[in-house]
């Protein structure tokens, strides 16, 4: 707790110094607008949080340089959720009660977001998150929440379309019992028939040491593509058993389970040869993505960093269009800057200028188009498809 306070104080102090150093015209204006990042600076998310906070800070800095929002300067407070819901709640309380921020951005772990979200909607503080659990946007958040990470339904929809693009006619899904198993089946049953393919499926027990009978059952349907929906340990066994059974069709799996570790562990390249993987991707090659690269000084910033860059940009533009900096103003206006057509902008400074000039804008960010449905889920984003060739992952496409 002391640690998070110290960071908060330091940030506030830095803000104060910055205020004194600013031109008198800025200093003379009303109180600054306060925003916060609540990212995992320590714990399991530790590798991501600091860069995420840096990306948000770069957006705020640019906007301040260009004169702030609604004539007010913006101060960004950075807190550490320690990848821990308890610490996350303590930090969020401080941000809401002491700092009185209008928005909290960048919560990473689903457990942290789930714990922090009620504090936000009850205090009418806007929350932007990168957490993936489907349940998060189903919380009764009254609109005070958006997330830029695709939920599992969107992911499965896109993989379904990808499978169709491979020209397959019979898809078989083998997946263990997970929170997204049923939604995976439902989504594929809807997507695949539209492209002229059939879909059959089987739930397996991820604790078994062999899947011979399961593979037999799947192969009876003579599929030309098998979607392996498990995690790394069971996917290893499954891929070996598919090879033993002489399966000649295509195999597709999630990049979080079919990864280099799996390839090393299988130890025999022909078993994994040609297997496709897919994962949500940042909008690599977009102008906003290039801005994030420059802002954080990395050649390939991770998706979370791109997402939090978008969070800060969207929130600031929503305030500008509302001419108000409250959480409720952000909630009511965020979709006016992210979707619905208008001048395409890729950063907050340009967006705020366009808004001041009375133009309608449509923000396209570093993580993707940033269009949200009524629950706060993104409607689309880019996905990265790779294929294993001779034991190495090669990019098929980012689309």
């Amino acid at each position, binding site marked *: 707790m002391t640690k998070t306070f110290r960071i908060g104080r330091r940030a506030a102090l830095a803000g104060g110094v910055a205020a004194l150093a600013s031109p008198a015209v800025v200093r003379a204006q009303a109180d600054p607008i306060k925003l916060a990042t609540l990212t995992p600076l320590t714990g399991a998310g530790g590798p991501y949080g600091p860069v995420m906070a840096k990306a948000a800070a770069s957006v705020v800095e640019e906007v301040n340089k260009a004169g702030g929002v609604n004539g007010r300067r913006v101060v960004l407070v950075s807190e550490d959720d320690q990848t821990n819901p308890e610490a996350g709640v303590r930090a969020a309380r401080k941000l809401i009660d002491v700092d009185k921020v209008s928005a909290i951005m960048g919560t990473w772990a689903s457990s942290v977001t789930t714990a922090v979200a009620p504090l936000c909607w009850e205090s009418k503080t806007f929350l932007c998150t990168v957490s993936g659990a489907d349940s998060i946007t189903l919380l009764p958040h009254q609109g005070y929440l958006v997330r830029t990470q695709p939920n599992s339904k969107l992911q499965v929809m896109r993989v379904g379309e990808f499978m169709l693009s491979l020209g397959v006619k019979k898809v078989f899904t083998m997946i*263990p*019992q997970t929170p997204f198993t049923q939604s995976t089946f439902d989504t594929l049953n809807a997507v695949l028939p539209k492209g002229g393919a059939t879909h059959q499926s*089987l*739930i*397996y*027990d991820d*604790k*078994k*040491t*062999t899947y*011979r*009978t*399961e593979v*037999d*059952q799947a192969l*009876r349907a003579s599929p030309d593509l098998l979607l392996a929906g498990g995690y*790394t*340990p069971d996917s*290893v*066994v499954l891929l*070996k058993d598919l*090879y*033993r*059974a*002489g399966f000649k069709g295509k195999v597709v799996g999630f990049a979080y389970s079919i990864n280099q*570790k799996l390839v090393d*562990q*299988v*130890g*025999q390249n022909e*078993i994994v040869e040609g297997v496709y993987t897919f994962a949500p991707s940042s909008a690599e090659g977009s102008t906003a993505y290039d801005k994030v690269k420059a802002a954080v000084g990395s050649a390939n910033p991770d998706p979370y960093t791109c997402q939090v860059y978008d969070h800060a940009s969207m929130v600031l533009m929503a305030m500008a269009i509302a001419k108000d900096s409250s959480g409720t103003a952000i909630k009511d206006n965020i979709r006016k800057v992210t979707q619905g057509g208008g001048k395409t902008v890729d950063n907050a400074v340009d967006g705020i200028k366009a808004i001041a000039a009375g133009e309608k804008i449509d923000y396209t960010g570093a993580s993707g188009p940033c269009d949200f449905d009524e629950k706060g889920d993104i409607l689309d984003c880019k996905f990265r498809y790779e294929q294993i060739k001779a034991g190495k992952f090669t990019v098929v496409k980012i689309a």
Partner: protein
Amino acid sequence: MIDIVVQALVNGLVSGTLLAVPAIGFTAMFAVLRFPNFAVSGIATLGAFAGYLAYGAGLQMAGSLVVAFVVAGAAGLLFDEVAHLPMVKQGALPAAIASIASGLVLENLVRLGFGNDPRGYDRPIARDIRLGDIRVSPQQLETMGLALALMLAVFAILAFTRIGKAMRASADNPDLASLKGIRPERIAMIASFAGMGLVGVGGMLLGLDSAIDPLTGTRILLSIFAAAVLGGLGSVPGAVLGAFLIGMAEELSVLAVGSQYRAAVGFVAILAMLTLRPRGLLGERAY
């Protein structure tokens, strides 16, 4: 349809053979030490990793199995002496609970040393051989052969050697055995070592075909226990029979009710057995 059922039975026979090895170890320990030693979960994992290291260091399959046996046996003996046997005096339940804790300790020690990532024995994987509609894996046949050889060795030792006879006597009636000059502490130590050694070998055999990670043993714990209960706790032939039945039932359940209910097979078997025939299929005859 009939071919897939036959195939499932063949698959079940293979996994049942592999399951039989740790089940024998578990039931033999129960026969002598009189408590269910749930540390088999951690010991099976330990044996799998010991064999993995030995195999990676260039040892042949048989040599690696010996390493798995010795390491698992030694660890099993240590935990029994330090943690479980002192508790047996309070009853079987405290000892069983202590053994669950030992299993967790072992699992996490392995995790500390090797991390959570799955590892595979660097063994070339071959396509299956087809006999008509039925396919079998050449490697699984090899593993099955090793398991069968091991089981025959156990039966021969129990039937024909002095130690084997002493173990059976001690399991049958410890007081009478000690009157005949059999030292129960020594028999207990041998049972711990050999029983856990078998469990370690079983962990390695099961890992050979798939992959090993710190949860390898935990995944098979229920099946081992169910096999032993089904055959009659304390009965070595019973454990073998139980293992075959559980192996086949688990594979058939995939066809009948879906793979996600596999864990239920073990529980249902235990429940049905304890309700209808608590002695187990063969009853408690310790050889």
